């Protein structure tokens, strides 16, 4: 048998064996991984409204308890009206409500944005005034660690707290990531609509700003109903 055929045969068999083993491992562990991802999402929802710190490690049970006690998922249509889950259509959007003492404190919007290298997914919580951001978290992204990857860090996400999605006149302007420090780059009247950028990651900031604007625009009818006090 010639050397070439031997090499090709060896490579083929090795690939087959390795591929098979990996498929087995991946399908066998999928259930556990899926559970972890779900748990992590719930944790991020809790983090966005400040019910959890994110630093401390808590048991699965605490997360589930906190979640089922405070958070409720609903669906809304494009006009911002709540639709029952059985009748939800293709264009309806999910919202999570955070209520305490029988009153809705904040609503949480899932964020899906483009990043520089892949999709960025997270949550943004907005207070029941329909204008003030109470928290922002990221649970999945593919940005460069140390640069764009900083979006998953607490220092970056903390900047969102207390910022507004409205300008001084009460018009919707969304929230954007500044190029550099907000204090130096943005005029004072607009500072509440911007958060500090990450140095070395202006592209990530650009994409995330666009993604946030798009998502917030989609949810704007719902936010407006909060501002007009139509939902209690």
């Amino acid at each position, binding site marked *: 048998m010639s050397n070439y055929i031997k090499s090709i045969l060896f490579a083929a068999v090795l690939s087959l064996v*390795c591929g098979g083993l990996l498929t087995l491992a991946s399908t066998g*562990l999928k259930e556990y*991984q899926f559970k*972890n991802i779900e748990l992590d999402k719930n944790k991020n929802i809790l983090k966005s409204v400040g019910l959890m710190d994110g630093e401390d490690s808590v048991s699965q049970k605490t997360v589930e308890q906190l979640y089922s006690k405070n958070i409720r998922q609903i669906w809304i249509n494009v006009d911002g009206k709540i639709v029952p889950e059985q009748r939800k259509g293709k264009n309806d959007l999910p919202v999570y409500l955070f209520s305490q003492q029988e009153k809705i404190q904040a609503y949480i919007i899932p964020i899906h944005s483009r990043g520089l290298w892949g999709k960025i997914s997270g949550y943004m919580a907005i207070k029941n005034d329909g204008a003030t951001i109470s928290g922002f978290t990221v649970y999945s992204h593919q940005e460069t660690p140390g640069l764009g990857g900083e979006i998953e860090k607490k220092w970056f996400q903390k900047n969102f707290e207390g910022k507004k999605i409205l300008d001084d006149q009460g018009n919707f302007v969304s929230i954007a990531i500044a190029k550099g420090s907000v204090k130096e780059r943005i005029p004072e009247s607009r500072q509440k609509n911007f958060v500090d950028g990450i140095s070395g990651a202006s592209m990530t900031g650009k994409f995330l700003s666009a993604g946030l604007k798009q998502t917030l625009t989609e949810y704007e009818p719902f936010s407006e109903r909060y501002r007009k006090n139509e939902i209690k």
Partner: protein
Amino acid sequence: MKITKTKAFNVFFKPIWESNPISGQILGICSALAVTVQLKTAVVMSLALTFVLAFSNLLISLMRKFIPRNIRIIVELTVIATLVIFADQVLKAFLYDISKQLSVFVGLIITNCIILGRAETYALGNPPFHSLLDGIGNGLGYSQILITVGVLREFFGAGKLFGFQVIPDTFYAAGYENMGLMVLAPGAFIAIGLIVWLQKTVSKE
């Protein structure tokens, strides 16, 4: 024959101190900088790397007589990549938080030069048992440095170990401050540099 004179003993213990992959051969520095801010990630990374190194050495040594010379690097990388992806999947299933913190660095074990280096220079020419020992020895050598650097960085950088505060509040009240440099990559460089210096001085005798 004394146990310290056997080949197996040497193969296992030499890389832990004398020819340590990081401080002796200066290999695998990238991950040593990236994952040592906290002790927890350093330990998990060490375990993952030791696992991959031990089994890649063992498997490649078992196949060493059949691997065609001209595609040996591809074969080695295939074996290593399979093990790394497997380790990554297991971490994602059972240690999700830590696997998120380690992010790409588990996947980057594939490109860690320690592993390909051991496969090329040792496993291809030695029997399976010794290769396995060599793999574990080198893995522990790497782990030893990683954990030492992890301890230094978390202790001086954050005043914690494994996430628990070890420097009492009274110290902070008295004006003690965490060393910010230790949290950044240069802190790891300095720590590794000091370890290399220490090791060179001690083993010169």
